[in-house]
């Protein structure tokens, strides 16, 4: 390969990365400039242009894809200011998806190491690979957000937020209280739902499916009901005060942790429903709620800001 062929190969690789309307003109100009640069370099070194000199020069000039990128305005899909948030959301989301699915897969009965390999293989093909939808969704979301910020630069202006504000407003809290009241009623008497829906004419099997064990009703059940019920006066107080005073925030955290502990007790204590299927479904749902509560507490702890100097600095 001689120097001319090296240069032409380089120019082709640059031009292929450019828009069609610009490609040939840039290639023509670049060819003239590169030959002139090479000629000047050869004269400076006192020897004719050869392939080695051309390759050295073009290596210093830059990779074709980089040079081509410089011909066009910079395209940023995710703003650099969003880089850390994107990375954090990607990693946390993937860890959650993978670990929850792995737990579910490992819960299946296994007789040998081959079964374990089969489960892992199924987990890899059924969860890990398809889970790439999550980073894809994040790229689309962050990209759209960045585009909106560039398109309307003054739209998302920063607004101060009071520390004791009620997220979603008082209406959201009223809805929460109503949800707790209904949920608590359902939890205390799930069979009452059947009476409500079917006017007492539901099949006996349906009642059996929603029947608690005595162990649950006389053990952790009442404690769980009481802890859930304590949320009602807490939220009502916040609704009346129109803000979240720090003491009520601490009470909410403590109540949340106690509720999580009571749920764990329920999980470990024994059957909740006399029907094995209902019991399994209820325990899976309860385990998910515990995980969500822990994640929520973890996020709140992580996001807490208490300005103070670093020790030792």
């Amino acid at each position: 390969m001689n120097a001319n062929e090296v240069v032409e190969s380089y120019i082709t690789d640059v031009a292929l990365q450019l828009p069609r309307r610009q490609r040939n003109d840039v290639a023509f100009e670049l060819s003239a400039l590169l030959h002139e640069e090479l000629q000047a370099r050869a004269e400076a070194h006192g020897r004719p242009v050869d392939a080695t000199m051309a390759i050295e020069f073009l290596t210093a000039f830059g990779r074709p894809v980089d040079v081509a990128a410089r011909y066009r305005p910079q395209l940023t899909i995710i703003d650099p200011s969003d880089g850390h948030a994107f990375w954090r959301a990607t990693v946390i989301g993937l860890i959650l998806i993978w670990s929850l699915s792995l737990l579910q897969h490992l819960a299946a009965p296994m007789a040998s190491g081959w079964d374990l390999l089969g489960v892992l293989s199924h987990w890899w093909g059924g969860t890990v690979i398809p889970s790439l939808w999550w980073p894809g969704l994040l790229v689309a979301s962050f990209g759209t957000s960045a585009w909106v910020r560039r398109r309307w630069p003054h739209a998302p202006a920063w607004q101060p937020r009071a520390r004791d504000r009620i997220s979603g407003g008082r209406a959201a809290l009223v809805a929460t209280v109503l949800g707790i009241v209904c949920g608590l009623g359902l939890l205390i008497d799930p069979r009452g739902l059947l009476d409500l829906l079917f006017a007492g004419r539901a099949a006996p099997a349906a009642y059996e499916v929603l029947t608690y064990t005595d162990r649950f009703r006389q053990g952790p059940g009442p404690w769980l009901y009481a802890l859930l019920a304590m949320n009602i006066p807490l939220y009502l107080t916040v609704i009346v005060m129109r803000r979240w005073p720090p003491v009520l925030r601490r009470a909410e955290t403590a109540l949340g942790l106690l509720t999580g502990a009571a749920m764990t007790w329920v999980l470990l204590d024994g059957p909740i429903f006399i029907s094995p299927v209902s019991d399994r479904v209820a325990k899976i749902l309860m385990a998910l709620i515990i995980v969500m509560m822990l994640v929520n507490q973890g996020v709140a702890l992580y996001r807490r800001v208490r300005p103070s100097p670093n020790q030792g600095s």
Partner: protein
Amino acid sequence: MTDVDAFAKLELELRRGVVVLATLSQLRTQRYGYELRQALAQQGMPIEEGTLYPLLRRLETQGLLSSEWKIADGPPRRYYVLNADGRTLLSRLSASWQGMNEAMGRLLREESP
């Protein structure tokens, strides 16, 4: 990061900040890419070929330069020159640069022993 790395990185950022202004300043008269690079280098502002040549196209796309092919004397060359918008921008950037340069001069004099 070593001191050498830090210096190289920060100096590169400084140079990047002035590349456009330096380029515009030398395009009050028509020049083609290689000639422009030589002119900048002779005045103490060498700019890598891989940076300068694409930059000329970008400035033209932004509507700051006009260009034309000339094939009369020697090999075909694409010549660039400031248009009206480019001249206005150069004037504003020059004033801004002078202001910053004077401020930096004062700041650095205060810091020197």
